[in-house]
């Protein structure tokens, strides 16, 4: 049942959506942007759910991925897809720099990561010879033609970001089901007890941070090649973090599919319904949404909707 559902959803995303909406560049553009946010939201939720750490600085990894890939293609002449992969590793390596913050807990970790994001943004602005400084990088190579498929088009971009997002969700699910997932879950309940039975919790957290940074970096790299332009204030903008947090909380950050669903709903509703009414300050809706979710359903919308289903399943099993 579950497999059929997943196959149907994949077929819908890869076949039905392009056929139905492919001709409408505006709508495809919106969906690509929503999937971009969704990718960061999944990475954020992976760290939040499995690692138990709230981050306010995922923009750091997004920006680093974007810059690494852009610079590799522009300055070293690398092809785009390998650069995007390396950008993911670049972000993961950058996350090593943030690992001393892992010994901090709760709010301290959240804000230390924010400090890193600020530092990276200022460095990108100041290292003019490499990054082009505040003026930014222009004409970043677009996604290439491969085997007659033009990934540089809007629809091509859709397939690329969709694949990144699906791969991220698969990775998330695999980690969750692995023995490490179990250890991480135990860590969530009591970190001290988990350490006592011999789990190296700091190491596990560090891995989750690196995986989360890798995914975010890939998404950032995709975005750079998709819009062909980069500047520090955009690449490291707080909105990448804010939108991802709102999406993940809205969809339910303890589920694999919740953050993506959240991103699609939150971004599309924000852009289609609220931006036209409130051109300035429409992000106020995001704040309201975030507050309301935390107060009324901290588990997100998905658990709320799924609670009936799972109750049915539970009674079935009994």
């Amino acid at each position, binding site marked *: 049942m579950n497999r059929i559902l997943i196959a149907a959803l994949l077929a819908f995303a890869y076949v039905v959506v392009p056929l139905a909406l492919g001709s409408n560049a505006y709508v495809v553009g919106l969906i690509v942007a929503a999937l971009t946010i969704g990718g960061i939201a999944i990475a954020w939720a992976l760290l939040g759910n499995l690692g138990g750490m709230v981050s306010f600085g995922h923009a750091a990894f997004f920006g680093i991925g974007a810059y690494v890939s852009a610079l590799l293609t522009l300055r070293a002449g690398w092809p785009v897809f390998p650069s995007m992969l390396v950008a993911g590793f670049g972000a993961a390596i950058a996350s090593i720099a943030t690992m001393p913050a892992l010994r*901090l807990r*709760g709010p301290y970790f959240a804000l*230390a990561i924010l400090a890193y994001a600020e530092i990276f943004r200022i460095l990108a602005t100041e290292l003019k010879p490499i990054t082009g400084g505040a003026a930014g990088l222009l004409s970043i190579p677009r996604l290439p033609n491969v085997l007659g498929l033009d990934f540089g088009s809007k629809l091509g971009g859709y397939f690329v970001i969709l694949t990144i997002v699906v791969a991220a969700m698969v990775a998330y699910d695999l980690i969750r089901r692995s023995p490490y997932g179990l250890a991480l879950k135990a860590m969530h309940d009591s970190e001290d007890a988990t350490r006592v039975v011999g789990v190296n919790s700091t190491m596990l957290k560090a891995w989750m941070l690196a995986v989360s940074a890798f995914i975010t970096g890939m998404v950032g790299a995709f975005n750079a090649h998709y819009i062909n332009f980069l500047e520090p204030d955009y690449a490291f903008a707080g909105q990448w973090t804010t939108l991802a947090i709102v999406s993940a909380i809205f969809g339910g950050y303890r589920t694999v599919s919740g953050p993506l669903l959240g991103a699609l709903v939150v971004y599309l509703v924000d852009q289609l319904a609220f931006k036209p009414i409130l051109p300035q300050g429409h992000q*106020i809706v995001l*704040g309201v949404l975030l507050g309301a979710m935390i107060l009324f359903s*901290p588990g997100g919308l998905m658990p709320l909707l799924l609670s009936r289903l799972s109750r049915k399943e539970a009674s079935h099993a009994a």
Partner: protein
Amino acid sequence: MLELILQSLFSGVLSGAYYALIALGLALVFGTMRVINLAHGELVLLGAYISYTAEEKLGLDPLASLPLALAVVVATAMAVYYLVSLIKKDRELNSLILTFGIGVILTNAVLMIWSADIHSATTAWYHDAVIPFDILFAMQAELVFAGIGIVLVGAVWWWLEKSWYGRALRAVASNRDAAKLMGVNPQLTEVLSFAVSGLLATVAGIAIYTAKVIQPAMGHHLTVKAFIITVLAGMGSVPGVLLGAVLLGVVESLTVTMASSALQELAGMVLFLVVLLLMPSGLFGRAKRRG
């Protein structure tokens, strides 16, 4: 060169005074509720914009707008308290996300009401120069609010150390259950800490409006600065907050003088990380595991 350094030390100390007001409010709420109020900088922002409107529309002197700004900011702080108090589960992290959301709401509300323009006080008196010892320079507003800031921080310190409510507040901060058994109402102290933090935020907002410029995106940066200062200070030390604030102010202004103004924020962040990683209990705090 020496004069430049002296000047930047002086300016740093002056900014430290209003930084201290902001950081002390954040620390008070953290002490009593274990909640980092990420909307705290936005309270300062709100105070600043009320003062701007009062000067612009009613012709009030920024200092005379204090009662009005105080009413609005403290009311908002109460609303934040009420919302945070609704959280029952996993309060430390959920309140972080909730107050982050409230910060987004307040920033965008300010943006919608007052637009993104930059403003500063128009009353000329505040911008007049003062030249102490013939070599240093300051605006009158900076001196006035540095004075008010130091007096207020001193007053809060005295209040926490000597008054019954202050002691109750510290009791709740150190052991909530024991304080309850001694007849302290924890809710009351929480409300008080939010009210005092709103008061300090209002004064800081007016200080920024008269001595610097204000813009809607500022709130978030102020919250981060206040958090940096509480980390520098270590929890539970009022003089530590003042020293941490002055330290941040001095490091920032020295960076501007010696390197460039683009690196001002970077200096604060690096200082923050170094202290956080090497001296986790802060420069003046008691040794204690965090979180």
